[in-house]
């Protein structure tokens, strides 16, 4: 049991991930992330809260593709948090996740430089949503302006809504009630989301899996994203 009211955790089963990028698109749509275009991506200014890292294993013809969906790891000891001079990023005591407050951010980019996972994205320009794309903006998420740092929020707007519904109905949040956009879009259910504080939740059971590991564990960041190691079944 952790000190948080909920300890939101994500399990990514690498055995199930096919690298289809549906999660990437879902994230982009849910969180009002602008498409910056090829030129900006070439300059390393791509905007993706969630990306698929692809690795090739072996030599042709015995070659195999490996995929790792990579998003903000919502570290318990987040390296991004102590370096912010204006406290624009902090650890939520309620949800146990790493929150970015856009209104406070002054764009020093220290946090992004200190993030070992390259999970933070900076708005180098004002975002463009040419018609009719502006009609599909999610009203639950702010459109970030130029000079603001942003990153995966574990779809905090969905957590907020689920909590409100649960409260109105006088119960606690059920397991599986909160599903981030990436997990919802995943065709193979490789992304499972839930509360680690609940011993009966799906994530609690999967977290005990012997295949489980965290990215760059040796840094001591204690991520809230647990990957399940891909085995021989991931041959493509």
């Amino acid at each position, binding site marked *: 049991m952790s000190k948080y009211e909920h300890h939101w955790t994500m399990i990514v089963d690498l055995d199930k991930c096919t690298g289809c990028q549906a999660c990437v698109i879902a994230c982009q749509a849910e969180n009002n992330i602008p498409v910056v275009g090829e030129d900006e991506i070439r300059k390393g200014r791509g905007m993706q809260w969630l990306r698929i890292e692809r690795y090739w294993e072996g030599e042709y013809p015995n070659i195999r593709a490996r995929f790792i969906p990579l998003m903000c790891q919502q570290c318990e000891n987040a390296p991004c948090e102590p370096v912010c001079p204006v406290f624009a990023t902090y650890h939520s*005591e*309620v949800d146990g996740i790493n*929150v970015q*407050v856009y*209104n406070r951010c002054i764009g020093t980019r220290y946090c992004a430089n200190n993030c070992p996972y390259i999970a933070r994205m900076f708005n180098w320009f004002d975002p463009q949503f040419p018609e009719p794309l502006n009609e599909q903006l999610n009203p639950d998420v702010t459109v970030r302006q130029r000079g603001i740092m942003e990153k995966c929020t574990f779809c*905090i707007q969905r957590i907020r809504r689920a909590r409100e519904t649960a*409260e109105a109905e006088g119960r606690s949040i059920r397991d599986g009630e909160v599903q981030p956009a990436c997990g919802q879009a995943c065709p193979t259910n490789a992304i499972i989301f839930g509360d680690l504080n609940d011993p009966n939740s799906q994530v609690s059971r999967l977290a005990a899996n012997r295949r489980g590991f965290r990215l760059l564990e040796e840094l001591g960041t204690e991520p809230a994203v647990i990957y399940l190691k891909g085995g021989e079944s991931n041959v493509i």
Partner: protein
Amino acid sequence: MSETRDRRLLLWSGAVLTIVVIITGLALVQIEPEDETKINQTAVTLPFSHEVHTQKAEIDCLFCHSSALRAPQATLPSLNKCMICHSSITVEDDNARQNIEQLKQAYENGWRVQWPDVYRQPDFVYFSHRAHVNNGVSCQKCHGDVQNMTLVEKVVDMDMGFCLDCHQEQPEADIPRLIDCATCHK
């Protein structure tokens, strides 16, 4: 000799190409179709008195702003809802009868009513009516004595200080959520 001819040829073809591009460009601009996605709806304003509806007719706030109990937005009623009563109600007062005629006209023609925004939270604020109304916060606590207003006036500046004035009276157990920026800032 041949070099000058080549250069002249290049210049001529360049000039011709530029003219062609300009002409096609102009033609494209002219035949650009009108935006069909825009719905041609007449927007009208209607006279409405909160005082009459809440005091005289004794209608509850939630009858018209019905989503306040179950959604973040309290919502404004559609003209269908107005017509639930106004299709049968008659009034003595000439002025009021005229107002109701305006409503009926708007309803029958399918006009869109443009209610003015009195309170509007900025983009980065998440406010939920459901969370507040279900926890016993009355409408008047934030919106003032709407039942005595003909036209709704802005009685408070709904900034963060205004929210915190109430929220600081919350029990200690709720403090962690209160100091979590993400509770209200999205």
